[in-house]
């Protein structure tokens, strides 16, 4: 039911913009800003580059709005543009998106659970640092799955990756995070 409502509201919004109501696009930006932010910020650290990319992403979406075929949600389509634009940017800069494996991946250390509870105040800082250490694609997938709570199917539409690949990348990313946290507490 909610899919039908989304589809209809997307249709109304897109038709309105295509009929010349440019200001209607501001609502599209506001609705998709969070998703685009998660994709771009997780992969691009420099603020000036982020600004250029965000403008580029939405300009592409605006110019190609007439070719949007309503096969997916408008937000997913914009997420896909954001992902592709960001990946192209990283490829131009020759940054590996999944190749940078964590240096501590092989040093699996189990940590003492009682110790863990005493240092819970630091836990989020450590986790944020560990997420930041992940390769760009893993960071994005973790954010889309756990923070944005998107289903694998929608992540697959955004990233053009098979669902199986996404699951496998997510397993590896979580393992890297777990090992990273363990390594941190052990030292």
């Amino acid at each position, binding site marked *: 039911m909610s899919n039908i409502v989304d589809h209809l509201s997307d249709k109304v919004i897109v038709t309105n913009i295509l009929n*010349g109501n440019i200001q209607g696009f501001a609502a599209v*930006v506001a609705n998709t800003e969070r998703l685009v932010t998660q994709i771009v*910020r997780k992969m691009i650290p420099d603020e000036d580059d982020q600004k250029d990319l*965000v403008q580029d992403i939405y300009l592409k979406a605006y110019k190609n709005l007439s070719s949007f075929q309503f096969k997916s949600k408008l937000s997913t389509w914009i997420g896909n543009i954001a992902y592709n634009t960001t990946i192209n940017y990283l490829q131009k800069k020759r940054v590996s998106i999944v190749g940078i494996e964590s240096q501590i991946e092989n040093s699996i250390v189990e940590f003492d659970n009682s110790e863990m509870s005493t240092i819970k105040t630091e836990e*989020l800082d450590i*986790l944020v640092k560990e997420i930041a250490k992940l390769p760009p694609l893993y960071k994005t997938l973790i954010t889309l799955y*756990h923070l944005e709570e998107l289903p694998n199917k929608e992540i697959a539409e955004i990233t053009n990756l098979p669902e199986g690949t996404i699951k496998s990348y997510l397993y590896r990313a*979580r393992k890297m995070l777990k090992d990273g946290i363990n390594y941190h507490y052990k030292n």
Partner: protein
Amino acid sequence: MKNNHLTDEILQTLLLNEVQDEIVDKHISECQVCQEKMKNYQFLFTSIKKVEPETFSFDVTSLVMEKIYEVEIKKEKNANIALYMCLSIILIIVFILLYPYVKTIFSQFKSSSIMANAFMMVSSLGVTIFLLKDIYRQYKRKEMLILQ
């Protein structure tokens, strides 16, 4: 060296409720190592939800809309230039084709007085401006109706 411990992948799928297996459940209840690993993952899964989503330090909507209006203004300017060029070309072609007739029309003006010529020109110009203004007003009214 091989052991019978559960893989990280199985432990994660268990926590995500993607798989349920009695043998796996039995193993976890008996194996200290897998229990520890499971706790670690549980900790990770709950902590990750607490991470604040990142935001940009700039206003995305105004930044994007500024760029879009810029593009639209440029597009309109280019469309106007193209329109004026087309009109100029049409006018030149029409003038060339009608030149022999225009010549005779202009010769008619020579015989009339300056006042009569001025009266004719001002009134024809006035009528043209009135008609153009009316066409533009109608166009705007229709545009508003479509947008509503």
